[in-house]
């Protein structure tokens, strides 16, 4: 199980909690479970195939490459963060 931290503005969709525990070997699997348990939350984050534009995922402080297939088996926490760019 991975502790999934939810941005404050979306916490109302999970009864005000800051995080939820979800299973999944990959980010994709985790989002599928989220879709089953918290469909409103999942709908704000992905389109069923990929993250919605403007989001990125951090796993234990690291934003992994190829995020949807990133492994979660050893991870403790996942954050959904606003995507960042730069100049």
């Amino acid at each position, binding site marked *: 199980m991975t502790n999934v931290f939810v941005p404050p503005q979306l916490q109302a969709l999970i009864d005000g909690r800051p995080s939820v525990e979800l299973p999944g070997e990959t980010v994709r699997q985790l989002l599928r479970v989220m879709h089953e348990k918290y469909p409103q939350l999942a709908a704000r984050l992905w389109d069923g195939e990929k993250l919605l*534009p403007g989001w990125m995922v951090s796993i234990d402080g690291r*934003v992994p490459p190829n995020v949807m297939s990133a492994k979660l088996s050893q991870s403790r926490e996942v954050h959904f963060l606003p995507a*960042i*760019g*730069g*100049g």
Partner: protein
Amino acid sequence: MSTAKKYQVIGTRPIRHDGVDKVTGRARYGADVQLPGLVVGKVLRSPHAHAKIVRIDTSAAEKLPGVLAVITSKDLPNLAGKIVDLGEGAVNMAHVSANCLAHDKALYKGHAIAAVAATSAYIADEAIAKIVVEYEPLPVVLDLLEAMQPDSPLLHPDVFTDRMGEPSPRPSNISKHIHLEQGKVDEALVEADVIIEREFRTASVHQGYIEPHASTALWNSDGHLTIWTSTQGAFTARAQTAEIFEIPVSQVTVIPCEIGGGFGGKITVYLEPLAAALSRKSGRPVKMSMRRDEVFEGTGPTPGSVIRIKLAATKAGKLLAGEAWLAYDAGAFPGGMIGPGCMCVFSAYDLPNVRIDGFDVMCNKPKTAAYRAPGATQAAFACESVIDELAETLQLDPIEFRLQNAAKEGTRRADGEVYRRVGLIECLEAARASDHYRTPLIGKNRGRGIAAGFWFNIGLKSSCTAHVNPDGTVTLVEGSTDIGGTRTSVAMQLAETLGIAAADVLPHVGDTDSVGYTDVTGGSRVTNATGKAAYQVGLDIQRQMIDRAAVMWECPASEVTVERGVYRHKDQSIAFKELAVKVPHLGDPVVGRASIDAGGATNAFGVHLVDLEVDTETGKVSILRYTAIQDAGTAIHPSYVEGQLQGGAAQGIGWALNEEYAFDDEGRMQNASFLDYRMPTALDLPMIETIIVEVPNPDHPYGVRGVGETPIVAPPAAVANAIYRATGLRMRQLPISPPRLWKAIAEAGG
């Protein structure tokens, strides 16, 4: 062990590969493009900051001899609601298109209304003058706090405040509200011994790249569109152009020219779609170049801001809580860097309790664009000013106070991210140990300031290919346009991997047809991400060279070893260059390739020190000494790292002291030239001293973090803190220009 000893190539200072072409004037920039049948494109821009476009009559312009095409927004498809992820985040393509050519409203003075292609610039100018536009002027809103009011003139009736996917019930100039929160802020505030709360303002400033935007397009009769342009990302220019015209990306080739500065301002397309539409209509290649006033008025500055900071600490100097309220001016369309502003504002501190609200606010100014660490400099100016005031209130040394509270491995940032290994503490220690900090500053009206800065430095996607030449050199084709010397820093990583000299790698920037997909050159990502791709290309080539050596020595490849470019089998050895000569006779040509997603942030911190003197009679500030300290992870080419630190510091000093968009009440920019928009020159600054700290990035094979953006973040706060030491005045509005500082001194009785 120092970098130079650990590596053969990394940490050395070879001559840059593109140097000769640039110093001899042979490098081809956007405006240098010449093609058979080339004609000139010009843009008609709005004289109003906010006006309904009632009617555009182009008939007189079209009849002018020598005019080949006239376009308006009617020549571009309607892209309503089209959201596209361009690698650095989501973009509303309808807004990008409407920024290139205004649709039903002009939203800022300088907004492009129509464009002309003609056989000469003179005819194009004459044709522009013959286009009749009937405007219905609308109320103008320039101040972002006014723009946030419910009764403010509305720029877009179809934009609602987005709260992470939930829109506001009514349209608003506030296009986004971000809320971040960690810990128990209210409880921590009650426990605090000292609380300081202040408000800050910063002005819109431009990147000020020396090369104006320039693009040439040829829409061939077979339907293929080729664009030569000054861009930070050939692939993002291709994607934006294809999306604007609703054509497949394979129908567009973007050839990136040399770029005379970008700093984030050459990611969004401006001229590319106009040149393309004019070429499609005229059947001729069309070249367009902006004048300097068009660059100021028609392209993106970085946001002005209003920021409120509250910080709480114990008597012993432990930070307990922070609150921030940030409003960033996005200009005429959504997207003013408020996200990174919120994420960066407290990023340098181990603050367990934080609450941050950020607002992206539209007003009748040019659409803002990224500028070196977009959103971070404004936030750092505010936060670092309060940190300095807190340190003084607590009677603590400003470096010791920062060290006591510095972000480090394990610190959770306000957005929830937990840092891996970062180097802020090392930068602060380097500042404390520096000759600059240990040298007393004496003299009247003089002060020393310090501030910290942070930028994420991103990863994203990069591609490279390389082939081994029979003379022992390696030709490298990379997808990253070179805005900061990355040809060399990427080539050096390939050279290090192969164990050859940097001069033996011949780097080239490919166009969108000749190299794999590569995200934009931005986010300080290229030496990190494309360098990582080059490293993998090196490993790929090394594997193939081992195979060729095995053929030569008639042994299994598993028995061949390689170290620092020397291949060995038992008592036999051969250097890479010698083996390369034999490759044509040993098997297939050797070509390496890599396409990678480099993942996320490398997190780079910097600390800046400044000594300055204030002329209390004029308000003029003279920089006496300046030192920029930064964790580069590993400095691939230390001269380039130093150059980035110096350039960022110089731009940050300009932001601090002089630069701002000055508008009249109707939204007309009053200083759209370098004569009136005051950027620092070499005469204004001392040599910027640099100290490179190397705390290797654990996610990069050579430890690279990237360096380009962090150095602009700290300067305004460092300068403001130094001005306080010199005058006793806390200046909380940028720029701290001579009139503003003189007035403050006068009001204080000085």
